């Protein structure tokens, strides 16, 4: 699947406006205009990959790269300000460089090629056959492909390679699905009356259209969305070292088990109120045993090492809180959020709703903790056994 040229400008508009609405793109993009369908950039095998569209505020001030091939998975590949894109001037400069470097060069067509994505070159063709390839702006000649075996996607420096031919088939298939979904979104009937060529904070704010920019969920009474009443409470740790006790208390409270922190400390070996201690790392497994024992095995508790974001997301979607150990500290997780729209190859914001028992006797509700700035050592999930 590829994208018709006249649709590229609209896709660019919607993508940039969505990022602007989410304030992923800053004020430097406000009132910037997308001037045309842009310059097609081809794969080494000749297939159009993406278009580079000039962004203008009066004069050209930047560009956006919009995929027209499904293999990228998402349409917006890059957006840059401060680097103006002028196709005509670049072509002229490239042709001059070609004439200087190779007198008598013959060609009947010149096209832009991603010879080593994202590196771009000008490819000079005569009757469909390449006669010269020059890297953009350095105007260095790109050598022919070397004849040697290597793994896909592991090219040498300055080696030409085909993005499409080397992309694994299973990756291509998965990305294609995502790409089609995104294009369907921008082709929605409600959006057809919008002119998205001007980037602005409020371009996509139209009646009866909700752009889903984030995926977010927190614990509530059931998994029915219509009953979405938050159902989780914060407990502050009663001593400076009882974060584990307070975390276990929060999760057990969620399942309607009421134990004092003093009792939980006894079960977990955390000492007494007057002589408390933390949980040694050699005993992190005790949390599983204690929680299962105190619920008469109604809870099936699992310890996860180095938990990823998806573990937290999946458990919250199943309406189950988690205990999260970070170095030296324990908290519970009761929700998550993640941005759904971001630049290709960049991870959007991923955050956790953390019920943190610190500071002692108070605690805080953190909405949100940036998943990228914390180290997640262990997590405990708990599943209610059905009888």
């Amino acid at each position, binding site marked *: 699947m590829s994208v018709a040229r006249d649709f590229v400008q609209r896709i660019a508009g919607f993508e940039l406006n969505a990022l602007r609405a989410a*304030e992923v793109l800053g004020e430097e993009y406000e009132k910037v205009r997308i001037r045309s369908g842009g310059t097609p950039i081809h794969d080494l095998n000749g297939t159009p990959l993406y278009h580079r569209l000039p962004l203008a505020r009066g004069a050209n001030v930047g560009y956006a790269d919009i995929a027209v091939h499904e293999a990228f998975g998402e349409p917006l590949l890059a957006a840059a300000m401060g680097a103006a894109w002028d196709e005509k001037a670049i072509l002229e400069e490239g042709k001059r460089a070609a004439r200087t470097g190779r007198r008598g060069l013959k060609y009947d067509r010149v096209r832009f090629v991603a010879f080593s994505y994202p590196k771009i070159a000008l490819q000079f063709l005569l009757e469909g056959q390449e006669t010269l390839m020059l890297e953009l702006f350095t105007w260095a000649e790109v050598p022919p492909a070397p004849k040697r075996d290597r793994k896909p996607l592991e090219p040498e420096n300055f080696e030409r390679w085909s993005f499409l031919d080397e992309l694994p088939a299973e990756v291509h298939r998965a990305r294609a699905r995502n790409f089609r979904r995104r294009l369907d979104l921008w082709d929605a009937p409600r959006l057809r009356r919008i002119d998205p060529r001007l980037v602005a904070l409020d371009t996509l704010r139209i009646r009866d259209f909700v752009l889903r920019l984030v995926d977010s969920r927190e614990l509530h009474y059931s998994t029915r969305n219509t009953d979405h009443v938050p159902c989780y409470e*914060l407990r502050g*740790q009663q001593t*400076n*070292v*009882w*974060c*584990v006790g307070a975390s276990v208390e929060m999760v057990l409270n969620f399942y309607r088990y009421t134990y004092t922190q003093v009792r939980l400390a006894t079960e977990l070996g*955390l000492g007494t109120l007057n002589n*408390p*201690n*933390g*949980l*040694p*790392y050699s005993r*992190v497994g005790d949390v599983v045993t204690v929680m299962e024992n105190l619920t008469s095995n109604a809870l099936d508790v699992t310890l996860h090492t180095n938990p990823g974001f998806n573990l937290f997301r999946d458990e919250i979607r199943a309406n189950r809180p988690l205990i999260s*150990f*970070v*170095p*030296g*500290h*324990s*908290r519970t997780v009761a929700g998550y959020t993640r941005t759904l729209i971001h630049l290709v190859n960049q991870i959007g*914001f991923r955050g956790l709703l*953390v019920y*943190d028992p*610190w*500071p*002692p*006797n*108070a*605690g*805080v*509700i*953190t*909405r*949100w*903790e*940036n998943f*990228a*700035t*914390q180290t997640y050592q262990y997590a405990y999930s708990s599943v209610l056994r059905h009888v």
Partner: protein
Amino acid sequence: MTKRGPPPDAARRIREAARRLIASGAVGDDRAPRPGAVGTPVPVRAPSGELNSWFVPVAASGRRLAAFLQLLPDGTLMRFSMFATPPPAADWLDAKTILRRAQAEQRPGETAGRPFLTYDRNPDRLAWGVILTDEGGAERLVLVAGDTVYSPPAAGGVGG
């Protein structure tokens, strides 16, 4: 402790970043305060003395602390945290109050240094640090987290 100060305009830049985050609605919920309530950022020092992050207080009414942001030195959000019951702002922002609390742990002959915001092993566990120095020059650290005052435990593990 290494005293490497942040750039001169860092606090202003961090405060602006905090205001933008709150104004955008990207953090907090319906109870989150307005951007106008964002106070002066306080540098958070790692135990080694290096700048770890910034603590940006967000005031509630009646001189209480509703919430705070913790931002990396480059302005990246670490977290936005809200108190269920807003404590007196002085607990977290007034050096005299913090020093007075630390002095409760002071032994005869010890003098207390200036409080500095730090953390107890994890940046989640924010606390003010006060160094107590005895007559022989030996130093020990006391941590003050709200109304809790303690000496950091020597043992490792989770919590202590």
